[in-house]
């Protein structure tokens, strides 16, 4: 275990901050307004109902930021009351209607030097207080586990690069039921828009380094409870770290405008005890072994259709719609000449390389089997009854 000095000193304050946090959450509940649409409760690890202050969170850094913010707020409040105390006193007393005669002074070098120096010293002091945190946030060395988070339009991909669980990779997508609730305008649940199919799983009390990048446009990986937010930039890698101090579920959302589904690519981090984490890794490794599809295997049409429907629902339906009709600038697949074309490679090329200047992204990251299945599915779903089948081997060949 390698912990920086700053990290350690920050941790000692965490209990007190947590107590304050509860106070803040309680206050949040108290101001709940009567026109709340539906019953909703605080989401542990996510936002509280009508939360008024920063999330005290589950890492030393987020607690430190909570304290730092409170201190700055206090400083601002004192200055605010001081300045406006003087101003409102003057407004009340120095009125023409009270017969107050104007004074004639209009400069004073001493006063002006003083009120230039005083704010200067205050901001330099505040800056000095924040400097330690800047340095601590940037220290991503000696991580126990390194995970790459890749932003896609509109989901997150996680690759366990280094540490226990190395080799695990999966995509993390918003629960389609939540997207449907959003469209219908009937939201429900404490984790509305925050529930994903595969949460990121990490062990408690370990330094986790998240390496961010993106596949298409800039996204941002944010988890307020950990005090982290980092842009995920296509073509570049950046990193941040956190060390969760308690187990549980923690939530965040994409924080950089990334296109139409920007609001629908949440982040869910599940923090497990070391023991549970090891069990999870073991299970994932078994799944990887079992799920390794043999790309040379010949599939039947029914198998491909069943698999393709799932792939379509998870990846394509958000733009092309579940009925394949597309929407606004998004091209329809139902009835599309390319989809119905005898030459299967036309559609395969678009799926592999993207089209329309990236508006249709490349789907290279999906497996040969998944891509073969989804192409077969679109060629046979709705009114596209072409009867054509695409085998994983053809995808494998097209990739070369």
């Amino acid at each position: 275990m390698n912990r920086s000095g700053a990290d350690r000193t920050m941790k000692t304050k965490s209990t007190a901050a947590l107590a304050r946090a509860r106070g803040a959450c309680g206050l949040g509940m108290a101001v709940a307004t009567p026109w709340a649409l539906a019953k909703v409760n605080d989401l542990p690890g996510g936002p509280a109902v009508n939360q008024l202050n920063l999330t005290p969170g589950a890492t030393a850094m987020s607690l430190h930021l909570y304290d730092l913010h409170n201190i700055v707020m206090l400083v601002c409040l004192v200055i605010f009351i001081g300045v406006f105390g003087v101003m409102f006193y003057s407004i009340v007393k120095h009125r023409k209607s009270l017969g107050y005669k104007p004074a004639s002074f209009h400069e004073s070098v001493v006063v002006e030097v003083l009120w230039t120096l005083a704010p200067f010293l205050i901001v330099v002091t505040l800056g000095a207080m924040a400097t330690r945190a800047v340095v601590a946030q940037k220290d991503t060395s000696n991580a126990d586990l390194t995970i790459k988070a890749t932003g896609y339009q509109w989901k997150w991909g996680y690759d366990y690069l280094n540490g226990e669980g190395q080799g695990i990779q999966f995509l993390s997508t918003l629960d389609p039921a939540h997207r449907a609730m959003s469209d219908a305008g009937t939201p429900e649940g404490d984790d509305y828009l925050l529930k994903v199919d595969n949460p990121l799983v990490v062990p408690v009390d370990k330094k986790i380094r998240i390496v961010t990048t993106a596949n298409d446009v800039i996204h941002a990986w944010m988890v307020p409870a950990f005090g982290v937010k980092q842009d995920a930039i296509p073509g570049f890698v950046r990193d941040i770290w956190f060390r969760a101090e308690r187990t549980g579920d923690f939530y965040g959302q994409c924080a950089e405008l990334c296109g139409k589904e920007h609001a629908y690519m949440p982040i869910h981090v599940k923090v497990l005890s070391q023991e549970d984490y090891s069990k999870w890794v073991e299970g994932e490794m078994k799944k990887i072994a079992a799920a390794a599809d043999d790309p040379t295997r010949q599939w039947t049409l029914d198998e491909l259709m069943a698999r393709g429907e799932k792939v379509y629902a998870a990846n394509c339906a958000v733009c092309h719609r579940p009925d394949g009709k597309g929407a606004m600038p998004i091209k329809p697949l139902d009835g599309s000449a390319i989809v119905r074309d005898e030459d299967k490679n036309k559609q395969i090329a678009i799926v592999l390389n993207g089209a329309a200047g990236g508006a249709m992204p490349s789907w290279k990251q999906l497996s040969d089997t998944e891509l073969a299945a989804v192409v077969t599915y679109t060629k046979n779903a709705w009114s596209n009854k072409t009867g054509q089948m695409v085998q994983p081997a053809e995808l494998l060949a097209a990739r070369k």
Partner: protein
Amino acid sequence: MSAVLEHPGDHAHDHAHAQPQGWRRWVFATNHKDIGTLYLLFSFTMLMIGGVLALLIRTELFQPGLQFVNPEMFNQFTTMHGLIMVFGAIMPAFVGFANWMIPLQIGASDMAFARMNNLSFWLLIPSAIMFVGSFFVPGGATAAGWTLYAPLTLQMGPAMDMTIFAMHLFGASSIMGAINIIVTVLNMRAPGMTLMKMPMFPWTWLITAYLLIAVIPVLAGAITMTLTDRHFGTSFFNPAGGGDPIMYQHIFWFFGHPEVYIMILPAFGMISQIVPAFARKKLFGYTSMVYATASIAILSMIVWAHHMFTTGMPVTGQLFFMYATMLIAVPTGVKVFNWVATMWRGSMTFETPMLWAVGFIFVFVIGGFTGVIPAMAPIDIQLQDTYYIVAHFHYVLVAGSLFAMFASVYYWGPKWTGVMYSEARGKFHFWGSIITFNITFFPMHFLGLAGMPRRYADYPMQFADFNAIVSIGALGFGLMQVYFFFFIVLPMMQGKGERAPQKPWEGAEGLEWEVPSPAPWHTFENPPKLDPTATRVIG
């Protein structure tokens, strides 16, 4: 009576040939007052269009879930709301005030380049048409956010190109306006009007004009590179070709941060004139006000990357931009202290312009503090791209720029129209606006602290109540501005109301109060002779 209109009869006769009537008066306008009026009416129109977009956004966000628009449309609304408000409403409005007031305040007969002045206004019309028209092209308007970050801009439809051309025209117009203001202020001041006797409004505009000339070309570069990336195969910002999307952000914010001071410095100038007028006491620390304005302008050029703390800068970069940003609080604080010291032991009255000025100071300081807090880089990591930032910049842009302009409309409006506004209606407009403004934007701080990201068409249920309050406030604030137009601006323009005396404000100082109300079409045709303070015409 002032000396400028010694022969009012001859005056009309002399200029009959140069005084086009009807539509020609406006299309071929070269008179600074007419062009100022055009600018102000144009920017108010854009304020209303941007306001309608804001209300559409707030309608969708009134409840969680999508009720009215799809997310693509929502992004178009937020993007165009920002672009139209910044480039269509706030910036041209300040140029309008400059056109009207700077020649009157420095004793000049007109702006230095009258025909260029005409061109710089009329360029705004095609660009406004392109902005608004882009909603009706295939794929709809630009939806990449007003900051137009690459590489999302590469995915946009033809509207993106229209936006780029529209911004080029706005930029050309701004640069011409800035050149005109600099030359006018430096060359056309009446004899005796030295720079350090000049009123604060021309002073702040002079500094702003230099900022415009420094940074608008940088914006033009950024959007031109976006254009060539989109259509001519370059890869300045396109990572697929080896470009750097973060370079776009650096270039954009090198323009974008001075831009926020372009939108607030002239407001400082306005407030620095209105507060002394109603405190019946000279501006405290005039010299330090000038120096503070210049310091803010210089500092504004070296703080741009505080908009980019979450892009992942090196430690030294973060520290530099954090400290530099926090230093801006010093000259800004000096200005606030000076205003308060001006009020201190004055003999104050609170007509509508003063109410707006005091309201400005109060809410602008809130916006200033919420700027210091995210200036601290580690805290910004939590606040970046959340509603806290939306709250912050509306506190400085609406409560700052817009409120100062309202103060100025009430302060100088009688000079423009020759008619006093209704004091009761002005006060109603003020109280209605400041209350609904705070209902709209104050709860956004809580949403941001709780982690609600901005530019979201839908949000978790925990944020529902504050969003509902915000939407109600926004509707109220919008209605107050419609009231302002129909019950205050329109009657004044139609000449309905009490006649305004030459100097309606007891404590006001300056050359604009040396000419009659309404200000005649031509003023100071011959350089006036000024008293030693350069505030009165003596012959």
